[in-house]
């Protein structure tokens, strides 16, 4: 399984994702430079966290035009796995690969803290290792992670089950009090209709080793790795 981690100017979770893929998961890793014009045969492309182009104007607004994003778009259209984490999620929305947008946290403050996520889809490559409604403990670190989509889009997404993660409490109850940023419907992560493009604000790469406070994140990486193998055998 070969993971490609995209590096924009201002990206900073690239090496954290790389570390997990390489040292913890033990799979093949390559970095994709924003100016690159091919994906070097990756099976899964990760758009990691950071402040690409400083997040100036709007998060992800400028990054989406990087040359590598054309390839990422084509790759997604062909059903390739594209995984946006934090800033990567914002880039995917700006690029139109995922619906909606991420706006300023309701608190107007940056928030770096642990959250609980209720897993609502386990039939996609990113969560195959999780149980339906399983509660994952994963940290967030963002100032603009409040998910927004217009009412029509939102209800279409809900009907199609495109919401993969919702902020919840430790018992898995999806409550306003468990919502760290004002996201509509407590949305923490969504997938496209086809199920191959995932965007999430929380940082699984920050909780894939016990010494960092939790290991729930590694499940997502393992799911992806496993899914690729499935694809190969089937």
């Amino acid at each position, binding site marked *: 399984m070969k993971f490609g981690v995209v590096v924009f100017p201002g990206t900073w979770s690239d090496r954290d994702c790389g570390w997990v893929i390489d040292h913890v998961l033990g799979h093949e890793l390559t970095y994709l430079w924003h100016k690159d014009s091919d994906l070097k045969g990756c099976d899964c492309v990760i758009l990691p966290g950071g*402040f690409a182009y400083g997040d*100036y104007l709007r998060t992800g607004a400028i990054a989406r035009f990087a040359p590598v994003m054309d390839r990422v778009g084509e790759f997604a259209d062909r059903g390739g796995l594209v995984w946006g984490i934090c800033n990567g999620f914002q880039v995917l929305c700006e690029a139109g690969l995922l619906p909606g947008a991420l706006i300023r946290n309701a608190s107007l403050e940056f928030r*770096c803290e642990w959250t609980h996520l209720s897993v609502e889809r386990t039939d996609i490559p990113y969560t195959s290792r999780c149980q339906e409604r399983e509660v994952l403990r994963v940290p967030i670190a963002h100032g603009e992670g409040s998910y927004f989509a217009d009412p029509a889009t939102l209800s279409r997404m809900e009907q199609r089950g495109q919401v993969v993660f919702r902020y919840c409490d430790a018992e898995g109850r999806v409550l306003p009090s468990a919502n760290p940023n004002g996201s509509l419907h407590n949305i923490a992560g969504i997938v496209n209709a086809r199920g191959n493009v995932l965007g999430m604000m929380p940082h699984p790469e920050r909780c894939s080793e016990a010494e960092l406070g939790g290991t729930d994140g590694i499940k997502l990486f393992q799911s992806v790795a496993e899914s690729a193998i499935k694809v190969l055998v089937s």
Partner: protein
Amino acid sequence: MSIKSVDERRLREVALTPDEYRVIVEQLKRAPNEVELGMLGVLWSEHCSYKSSKALLRRLPSTGPGVLQGPGENAGAVDIGEGWAAVFKIESHNHPSAIEPYQGAATGVGGIIRDVIAMGARPVALLDSLRFGPLPDSSHHFDGVVAGIGGYGNCIGIPTVGGEVYFEDCYANNPLVNAMCVGLVRKDQLMRARAEGTGNSLLLVGADTGRDGIHGASFASLELDENSSERRPAVQVGNPFLEKCLLEACMDLAHTDAVVAIQDLGAAGLTSAVAECAGRVQGAGSRIDVALVPRRERGMTSYDVMLSESQERMLVVVRRGREREVESIFEAWDLTSAVIGEVTDDGHLTVLDGDDEVARVPVRLLTEGAPMRRLVGFAPEPPYGLEVEELPPLADPGATLLQLMASPNLSSKRGVFRRYDHMVGDSTVIPPGGDAAMLRVKGTRLGLAVTTDCNARYCHLDPHLGAQLAVAEAARNIIATGARPLAVTDCLNFANPDRPEVYWELEEAVAGLAYACRTLELPVVSGNVSLYNDSSGDSPIYPTPVVGMVGVIDDYARRLGAGLRAEGDFVLLIGSSHNDLGGSEYLKVVHGHVAGRPPSLDLTREKAVNRVITSAAQSGYLHSAHDCAEGGMLVALAECCLLGGIGVRCPALRPEPPLRLDAAFFGESPSRYIVSVASRAMPEMQSLARRHNVELSLLGLAGGDLIEFEGQMKLSLAELRDAWEVMVT
């Protein structure tokens, strides 16, 4: 040559005294031109020349077995083992933050990061030591500064893992913003910012140069007054995104041998960067052409260019002929760079503007020419004393605990550090919230512990003792994590040293730092001085010598948290308690006094206690450790419970006379820790304590969700947490 040749107003503009001007004329054997005057003005400012403090700073111990780089470079460096060096420095950005809290704090963070980059190290952690006036009046400063620190650190992707926040009246108009950066580099790749090699090129990279903060350095050396507003353009807007690109590009430089040195541009901009680089090499000089400097604005004079303090710029000394190689690395990151001059061997800094020579000054005159100021200090009236005996006895420990936990200086700072990304880098193995934070060194088992500490109220009551207590507390915070303290960086925040009582405080504090660091064998490898922290009219700040410290643990798997870990553990107090209520939070919050003598500190005893904790930690007896600081034993115990989410049941506390009950609960005797151990480890703990002849007392048993001293107090962790987290809205 007489002073008349330049008018006094002009001298005041460049913050030079008539005497200093005379020295300049003597040395140059002519009157300096405008550009030269400006350059000398900034470099001779207190901020750059340390003319009021240099003599004192020599007293600080700066050598030791592990020291790889002491003061004099952009940051200090110590050996942490396995071929790694920790590079670190703390710096103040008080004056800019007073005027524009967000940008002042943000550019402070940006500046200290560049110092670490210049050593060839990758910055891995930030800490912020903050002082404000009381809320809500000072919330404009508080909110802006916290937002600014997060705004820069979060964007550039370096975790902010520690710091402090204190609120005292004396900081109302003089908030203190000290930022510390810690970096890692392979020992053999540590760089020094020395302009070696005549003919090598000077490459300027990063932001275009604008009219930012001209005279910022001089400005940082003046008291704020009504017409500070005219100097306000000195405030700058930072660009963390640009600095992130600069950071990565500089890391890429490490892969080539085309680079001789990297020097950041900070206060006094190009002038100081070029002069310092040359100044570090005997006989070296530099020739630069301001016409080659990329500019942001039209119509800038060579004076503007030499004095501009535009952020996010670096000066790189490149081997002659290798310029393209280096430029292409910067181009990959879309950074503009330009060769602006070269290293010479004439010992002069020569500035050209195209074909005209606009300045030519001996490097030594710029970097070491400033006449040191001989200031006098004398002790002020000793702050009003305290008759402990006259304090009413402690009525209700529980109520008092709630009151203290909710006091701004003791309440949880989670509301602050959750606004900072403290996890990026996947290395934070002890997050903020306990004592020191810890970062693992990837690829090794090493853990790097970092902290900043200073109780300025102690320093106000007794600067010599207060400074010692700051060093001791920082060390305790490191040791509480199981790590071994290695070295110190300090930031001396003081008022106007021309006031004898202030200079006395400075002398005393430095002497206290020196004594404690020497005794605890902690070299001071870097630091910073910020004077004139008193806007005219109101009271000067407390003397605030902030201590930043790093330590190391050989295997971070053995690190300790502050929170209780297991029900049924024995909770112990290590170290002895005395009637140390002077300068305590209890005295201020409950009785409304800032008075008395700070807790007395016996460094031999301190070492003994530290030895007990360290060997107990190494032997794996300890499940948790937390030092007792402000608020004393009971506040520390409450923190252990809240951080661990486990209560504690204790028998009534019956201190032996003359120890008072209030002092036993809330006194701030140093050299004390609260630890938790499995019952079976008790015998070893006792013998260990006996061997070092250190007091060990069993406080109680971990368990439940109450904190209780039988018959004296009983609180649920829930109500305690509500009180403690008042500031977490």
